[in-house]
Each structure stands twice: as C-alpha cells, then as structure tokens.
C-alpha cells in the first residue's frame, strides 16, 4: 500500500495501481474515453490528464502508476485547462450531430463536453469525412463521430480473441475499419456498441427506434446459456426495444453475448401463436383458454381417463423455470408417469450433479485448465472469454476433444481424437504419473500429466459427460483426482439445466420408445431436440399430443392441441446457473396476444384436473417450495447413476450459437450473421 493525496485528501492505494483506479475506487471523478477497466491501457485520448505535484507536465491518470507521497489535483487550473483543450481538440472533427445520433442522451462525449468542455468552439474550418463501413447485421457505424479511442479494437483483440477491427491510416486520416469488406463476426461483438463512448458504433436493429430516456429498465436473467448473465431489457410501449448487460462481476462482468443482446427481436415474430389452437381434421381452429383447459381436463382428469403407469410422455426444454419444473414434477406424478425428458438437448444423465462445482470467478484462480470435449464458443461464449483471459495471463489451457474447434485462445496442449480413445489417453496419463516407466517419454499426454495438481481444473463438456463412452472414463478420472487432487467441473448448457437436474433427480431424463396415451411438449421445437426421431415417433404413436409453445413451427402439425406460452421476456421465474446459483427474474413486458406464462398454464391445468396442493397464488410462492427440493450435493468425483439406459445416442451433435432456441431462431438480425460453425 502507498499513501497518496488527491485534492489534498489522503488515500491509501495498492501499489502499482494507476491514478484513475484509485480515483474510481474513491469516487473521485476523472473524465476518460479510451480507458476501460477491462481493457489494456492505450492512453491515446488524453482526456484524463491531471496535474501532479513536482511534474512539469500533466500526466494521463489512466497510464500513471501511483507513488508514495504523490499529490494529484483533479480540479486545479492546469487540469481544467487540459480538459478544456482536449475536449476542444476531440470535437474538431466531430460532426456534433447529436439530434440525429442514437447515442444522444447516453453519450460519454456529450456528457463530458457538458461537464468539462468550453462552451464555445473556435474551430471554423472544414471537418473531415470518414465513410461508414458495413460490419454486418448487428453493429452500425457512423465513423464521422469516432474519436479514435480504440476501445472497439482492443475489445475484439483482447476479449473477443480475434482482432477484427483496426485503426488504419494515421493522424488526420486515421479511421476504424475491418479488413477489406469483412464483417465483424465475433459471437460477443455487440459489446463494442456499449464500449464506444460516442455514437460511432450503435445497434443496427435498435437504430432510430427509441431514446434512452423514453425506456423503462427491467432486469432479467439470460435464458440462452447456463452462465445466467444479468440482462437489462429496455422497454417502451410494452415492447422490448433493446437488451443491455447489467454489470455483475461474478457472472458476466460487463459483457453479454450477441445471442443475449439480440434475441429479443424474436418476441414479435410472425410465428407467435395468438390463441389456443385445436386440431380439427387437418386444420387448427382458434379456441378460448377455457375451452382449451376443458379439452385437457377430458384427457387428463383421472375420473374421466385413468392412466396406467407411464402412459404419458413429457418432453421439456432445459429453459423452463424452477417453478415450472416444480409444477411439472407434481403433475407428472399425479398422472402417474416417470417418462419425463426434462432436458431434450441431451442424452439421459449418467453422472450425479453435473455442474461447475465452484464459482465462475474461481475458474480464473486455477493455473491449468483441461477442457474435455466442449463446444464452448457455441455453448458459453462468456466463460470462454474468461479462459481466454487466463491464456493471455500465461496460464495453460489444454484441450482434449473430438473436434478441433477454433476457440481463439492460446492453447498449450491439444489432443484431438475420437471419443472412444479418451479412455486410453487418460489411462496413459495415469500410468505416467503412477509408475516411473515413461520418464523419458516426450508426448502431449506427458505434458498434460505434468500439469495435474490441485491448481488444475478439469472441465467436462456436456457432449462428453452425457455420452455413453463417458462411463468408461469416470473410473480413471476418479483415480487421477485421488492421485493429484486436481479439481473437476461440468459445463451444462441450458439456462436451467442444473436446476432441472436437481429438481428431477429421481427421473432419468429419458423416454421409452413406445406407444403412449398422451404426450406433452413444453417450449420445444424439433431443432432443440437431440433425439429427433424418437420425439417424432412418440408423437406419431401417441393418441393425444399437447404442445405448449410461443411459436408455430414445422412440427406444430403433430400436435392436437397447441397452447400459446410466452417467451422468456414475458415470463417470471427462477433459473439455477451452472455454478448452482439460484437467480430469480420478473417479467419485463406483459404477455403478447393471449399467451400465458408456462407456470400459469401448468398451475391452471393442475386445478382443472384436481391435482392436490395446487393452490399457489404467485410465482414466488412456488419458488419457496421449489428451492427446498433442490439437492445440494457437490461434484467432487464422478459418480455414475443409471448404468443401463437404452436409446442412448452416441452421435455428436454440433451446435450452432444462433440456432440454440426458438427465440434466437426468430431473431432476424442473429439469423443474418455468419453462422459460427467454428470447427477448423
């Protein structure tokens, strides 16, 4: 710790911290453009100049480390003069077109000019013109407004992992550009919109549709991956106008993925179902909710239709909330079925409690990561971003996978092989460590073996821990845990995979291939389902199929009754993220048309068929009950459950980040991006 003085007041500051960090920590304002706490220091805008005692010239606060006894003045005449001059300089080529700029009202340049600039401009000459670039369907450019802070360039290079933008030219001619007619294709590219301190990079889909002060901010949790990113939906006239990150250092930091940012566009898709629909012949006719529930009553009420054991099949997405899962669990046992597939994106579960086992931030405290089979870039782009940070900091990232995905990070050791060979690889690693035979060996396995210690984290992707071949792996991995005290974790992908897992622990996430009396599908489309043919076969043979979904799609024809549920943004509830963190969210807008949140549909259905203990008045009341049912076991070793499930698909399912759920699939902007099939 060192002692410094800012404006005459004494502060203690950690050694090597910069003036701007100390000022930020203590609530002292220093204006800045190029500095961003998550990016490297460029010190090229000069807005943060401050006077420091005994230095003849002002110093950039973002690039100057504090020293014992330093005296800094953020409000002195010299500082103020600098701020005014820099501001004037930055505005020389700025078009001052705030009235037609999307950033107006939330612009750092505007705010800083008001607070620190001079009220008058002396500049009379011509301003330069920079042609706009087409960076793709998400980010729109107005490069006349750019002040060359280079935040966007540094973000894509350091956080995105691939420098897709650059500052070309020099001095007066410098401009932001992608390489010759290329677009920006990073899966987290939307963050440059937030980073740009001016209106040079704005959201293409949101452009010209609302002003910041017209919108109400509603918090929610991302439904698109298992991280549970905190989002802020900006709402105007009952519509989500845009989605921004809500800073949460433990989870998403200040970023979100493009899928989180632009999925809202799907809410108003033409496919939205307006009223319940009943199949009559080969057509559907709109009916009222009352009629719909009476139809369900006729099928599911035990006094009208007594099912034998396991005569109802239930397919559910892994994005349904904890409350919905709780109600579903009750309903399933009421109609006497254990045929519930609560995570249709996966094979039946093989191991107990697949979750991260630790906090997201803790991942970064390890020295070595071994990533065993994951499509991280398509599944969890923000977790990948943390690994990238670790790679940049000199820690080792090691990969064992079946496909050579380009993760855009520094990889120390890589083994690409068919899954059946994983066992051999791990056994070999075990042999290297437990015997002395392989002392002189020079192999990737040896390199990895040498890294195993309590500072090593083995992360297993969903493709692997749900694959039957994993059963042969658990033993040797457990031995390695005993031998080296390395830590393990799993990477589930659904926003509520862990919650569902903990709620439905006594089901196997599996449906038999047989004839059922009825089936129920919850918020699903065929694209979401791993075993598509099983799903189609079951629906074909089953007598009565209920589909609860916000959107019509190709396979809607298979349903006899369709009930319009809401999208995530019109729903409230609770997700459990991959670190078992329980996070609740509320509605951001009211349901469109006559759609209803799934939990309400299940709740009313329960009443219609006289399911006992179904008197919940609110979502939070259900939550109270639901969280009690969550198992709290930790993942320390891999314990096998369900050894002999049939119909286990061995196939590898390549995921596409922009095809991950119904909402994302209907976001036109996301669908127009280059598909991120990132294997080499």
């Amino acid at each position, binding site marked *: 710790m060192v002692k410094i003085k800012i404006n005459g007041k004494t502060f203690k500051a950690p050694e090597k911290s910069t003036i701007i960090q100390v000022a930020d920590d203590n609530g002292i304002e220093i204006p800045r453009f190029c500095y961003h706490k998550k990016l490297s220091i460029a010190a090229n805008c000069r807005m943060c100049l401050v006077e420091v005692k005994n230095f003849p010239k002002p110093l950039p606060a973002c690039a100057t480390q504090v020293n014992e006894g330093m005296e800094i003045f953020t409000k002195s005449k010299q500082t103020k003069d600098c701020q005014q001059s820099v501001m004037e300089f930055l505005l020389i080529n700025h078009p001052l077109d705030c009235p037609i700029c999307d950033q107006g009202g939330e612009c750092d340049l505007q705010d800083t000019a008001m607070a620190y600039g001079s009220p008058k401009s002396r500049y009379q000459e011509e301003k330069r013109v920079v042609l706009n670039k087409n960076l793709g369907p998400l980010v729109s450019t107005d490069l006349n407004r750019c002040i060359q802070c280079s935040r966007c360039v540094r973000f894509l290079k350091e956080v995105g992992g691939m420098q897709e*933008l650059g500052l070309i030219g020099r001095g007066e001619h410098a401009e932001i*550009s992608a390489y010759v007619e290329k677009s920006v294709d990073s899966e987290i590219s939307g963050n440059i919109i937030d980073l740009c301190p001016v209106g040079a990079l704005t959201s293409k889909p949101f452009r010209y549709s609302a002003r910041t002060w017209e919108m109400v901010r509603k918090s929610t949790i991302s439904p698109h991956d298992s991280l549970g990113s905190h989002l802020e939906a900006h709402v105007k006239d009952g519509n989500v106008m845009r989605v921004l990150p809500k800073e949460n250092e433990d989870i998403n930091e200040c970023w979100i993925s493009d899928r989180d940012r632009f999925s809202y566009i799907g809410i108003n898709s033409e496919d939205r179902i307006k009223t319940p629909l009943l199949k009559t012949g080969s057509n559907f006719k709109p009916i009222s909710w009352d009629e719909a529930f009476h139809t369900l009553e006729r099928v599911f009420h035990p006094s009208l239709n007594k099912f034998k054991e396991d005569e109802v099949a239930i397919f559910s997405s892994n994005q349904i909330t904890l409350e919905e899962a709780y109600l579903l669990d009750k309903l399933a046992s009421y109609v006497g079925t254990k045929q519930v597939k609560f995570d249709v994106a996966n094979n039946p579960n093989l191991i107990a409690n697949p979750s991260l086992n630790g906090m997201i931030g803790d991942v970064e405290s390890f020295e070595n990561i071994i990533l065993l089979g994951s499509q991280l870039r398509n599944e969890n782009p923000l977790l990948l971003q943390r690994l990238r940070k670790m790679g940049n900091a000199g820690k080792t990232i090691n990969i064992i996978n079946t496909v050579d995905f380009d993760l855009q990070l520094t990889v120390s050791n890589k083994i690409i092989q068919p899954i059946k060979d994983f066992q051999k690889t791990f056994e070999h690693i075990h042999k290297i460590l437990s015997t002395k035979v392989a002392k002189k060996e020079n192999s990737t396995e040896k390199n990895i073996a040498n890294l195993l210690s309590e500072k090593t984290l083995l992360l297993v992707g969903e493709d692997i821990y749900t694959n039957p071949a994993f059963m042969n792996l658990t033993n040797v991995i457990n031995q390695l845990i005993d031998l080296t005290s390395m830590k393990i974790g799993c990477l589930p992908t659904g926003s509520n995979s862990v919650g569902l897992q903990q709620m439905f622990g006594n089901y196997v996430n599996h449906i038999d291939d047989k004839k059922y009396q009825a089936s129920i599908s919850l918020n699903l489309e065929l694209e979401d389902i791993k075993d598509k043919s099983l799903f189609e076969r079951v629906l074909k043979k089953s007598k009565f199929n209920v589909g609860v979904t916000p959107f019509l799609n190709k396979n809607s024809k298979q349903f006899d009754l369709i009930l319009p549920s809401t999208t995530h943004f019109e729903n409230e509830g609770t997700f459990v993220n991959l670190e078992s963190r329980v996070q609740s969210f509320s509605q951001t807008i009211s349901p469109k048309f006559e759609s209803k949140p799934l939990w309400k549909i299940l709740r009313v259905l329960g009443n219609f068929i006289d399911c006992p203990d179904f008197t919940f008045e609110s979502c939070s009341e259900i939550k109270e009950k639901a969280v009690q049912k969550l198992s709290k076991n930790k993942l320390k070793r891999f314990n096998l459950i369900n050894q002999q499930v049939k119909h286990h698909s061995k196939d590898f399912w390549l995921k596409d980040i922009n095809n991950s759920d119904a909402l994302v699939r209907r976001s036109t902007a996301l669908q127009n991006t280059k598909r991120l099939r990132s294997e080499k």
Partner: protein
Amino acid sequence: MNLKLKKLIDKELKKYPSDKKQSAVIAALAIMQNDRGWLSKEDISEVALYLDMPEIAVLEVATFYNMFDLKSVGRYKLSICTNISCMLRDADHIVNHLKEKLQIDFNEVTRDGKFCLKESECMGACGGAPLLTVNNQKMHENLNIDKVDQLLKELK
C-alpha cells in the same frame, strides 16, 4: 510469395523470438514492396498469413507508415515534406511548381506512369529543408525551382 521473398523474410524472422513473428511485419512489408513496387491487398493478406497475424493488423501497419504504398506509384515516387520547417522554407512553392509541371495532384500518377507526388511528414532532416525523397531512397535537400527542374530532367 516466391521462394526468394520467403527467404528474405525468414532472414528477418531470425532476429526475433519464434513466438513473436509479428515483430518482422515492417521488414516483411518492405521486402514485398521492393519486389512489387507497391502493396496490393493480396500482398498484405500474404504477409498476414506468413506471419500469423490478423490481416487488419498488417493493414494498420501498412497504412500507418508513409513509405508503404497501397496503390501504384509510377516509376518515381516524389515524397515532399510539408511539415513545419519545410513549410517555413516555402515547401508550398515547390509543391505548386511540381503539381503544375507534372499536371498532377498529391497521390496521383502522371499519365505516362513516370511520376507520382506524395505529401510526407517530417523526415527529421529539417536542416536541409525544403526537401523531397525519390522512391524512399534518395533525398534531395535545400530545394529551389531550378534544382527541382534539374532533378525531373535527370529522372528518366
């Protein structure tokens, strides 16, 4: 990129650690330009590929330094300094004379493909202001109209 160029670049690469290939980017671009006369987008992509760098990062370097030409520059590229010392020593007068005589503006090439005129920043040789260089290689100092005319005559 032919073998000869690769060899030249490899020689530059030896000066840096093997995981810091991008250190050789300026040298590699210069080698390319000496061979081709100027740098096309394809040349830049080739350098990027060879040095394992993002293309845009190579383009940044190529556009930052004045001596790299991203368009054809004719047989003789005349780069004339217009920065402060040269300006005070009336570089503008020389510039206007050249423009008139060659019938071109900055960054243009004469119709016969012989001359190209470039505006350059301070070359750190203000003592000889005003000055220009020919093809980045030869510097002509203390210019006046006669000297310029003489130079144009000599460049065949």
